[in-house]
């Protein structure tokens, strides 16, 4: 994987090959956990970074739940290599991995991602047909059992924010739900989207402040400050509902309600005028700056066990 070109976008098969290569190169640090299958039968691969122990406190990072947000899957691939490269070299990463596990799902919506490469670059949702409608797919960030069906999601299968027929109806979502519940020891959950430069914490479905709001806010502030220190990329931060809009059935509202205190959503850059079509030459700078913020959150999680 040293020769993998992180500065360009890759197909799903190239990313899956990268994952297998990384595992093969680092048998004592990286393994691949298949937590389920997508609707079209693709494996939902999660890379597990662990230095031992059983069921250690863990950190979850996912990218690509909205398939067209290509800079996120590309950044996730870079994160995977960064973790392997830094373990044993960077004191903070080494300290974290000596006590905690990191789980990284790079292609969280594989059917959608494949579809963006082959049929429709603008595709965002899953690819499961909706009975009674000619429109396909559910927004996997509206399908979680957290305020599900409330304002901030659509009941129209043709909408980009269609919540689905019921909570956890999408296998891509249900597989994570089951994995998180069976693991039972996640302490941080970070779901990465693009674009609009934001770092968000719960809630999205209610204006009720999260009970840990003060701590989440302060940590977010520190994280975006460090992020901006690299290339000056300016982020906004706050709770989902106060910073962007009401969104029901969201990922991190569910994880927070599961007791995973450090639940965050990133909206990565486009600082210019490209939107989802961020040029590939911005992949590495985006991943590098995001990593600084991720490290703040992971380090804080490590130093504040609960």
């Amino acid at each position, binding site marked *: 994987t040293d*020769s993998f070109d992180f500065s360009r976008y890759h197909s799903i098969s190239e990313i899956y090959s990268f994952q297998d290569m990384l595992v093969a190169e680092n048998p004592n640090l990286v393994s691949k956990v298949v937590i389920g299958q997508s609707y079209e039968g693709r494996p939902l691969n999660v890379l597990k970074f662990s230095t031992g122990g059983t069921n250690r406190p863990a950190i979850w990072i996912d990218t690509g739940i909205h398939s067209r947000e290509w800079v996120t899957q590309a950044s996730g691939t870079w994160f995977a290599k960064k973790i392997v490269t830094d373990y044993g070299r960077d004191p903070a990463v080494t300290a974290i991995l000596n006590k905690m596990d990191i789980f990284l799902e790079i292609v969280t919506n594989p059917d959608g991602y494949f579809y963006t490469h082959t049929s429709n*670059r603008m595709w965002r949702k899953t690819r499961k047909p909706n009975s009674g409608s000619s429109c396909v797919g559910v927004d996997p960030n509206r399908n979680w059992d957290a305020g599900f069906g409330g304002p901030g999601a659509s009941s129209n299968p043709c909408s980009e924010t269609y919540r689905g027929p019921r909570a956890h109806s999408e296998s891509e979502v249900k597989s994570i739900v089951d994995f998180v519940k069976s693991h039972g020891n996640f302490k941080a959950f970070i779901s990465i989207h693009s674009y609009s430069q934001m770092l968000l914490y719960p809630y999205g479905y209610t204006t009720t402040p999260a009970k840990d709001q003060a701590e989440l806010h302060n940590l977010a502030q520190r994280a975006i400050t460090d992020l901006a220190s690299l290339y000056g990329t300016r982020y906004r931060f706050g709770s989902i509902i106060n910073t962007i*809009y009401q969104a029901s059935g969201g990922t991190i509202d569910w994880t927070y309600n599961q007791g995973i205190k450090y639940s965050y959503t990133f909206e990565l850059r486009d600082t210019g005028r490209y939107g*989802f*079509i961020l040029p590939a030459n911005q992949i590495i700078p985006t991943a590098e700056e995001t990593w600084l913020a991720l490290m703040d959150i992971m380090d804080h999680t490590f130093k504040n066990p609960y």
Partner: protein
Amino acid sequence: KETFEGHQVLRIVAKDDVQLSLIKDLEDMIEFELDFWRGVTDVATPVDIRVPMHSLQSVKIYLETQDVEYSIMIEDLQVLLDEEQEEMESAARVAEPRN
């Protein structure tokens, strides 16, 4: 393969909350087949909307008659997608021998 010739992405900046709700009303105009890349949040944050060619004129007239300010963020989406595809393919060609 879905293509996007003539689709434009408009970056819309509301002056006040009244204009913000006018922009939000666009979400319900299903016939325009709009794709909100960046949804309506607050006055300070621009709204980015992909507009198919068949709706462009209507949407621009709607915005201009309400004196809502917008700029064209992407002139022709397909041109950008073709560039992205070409870059992926050429990078893959370079990488091939190495692999």
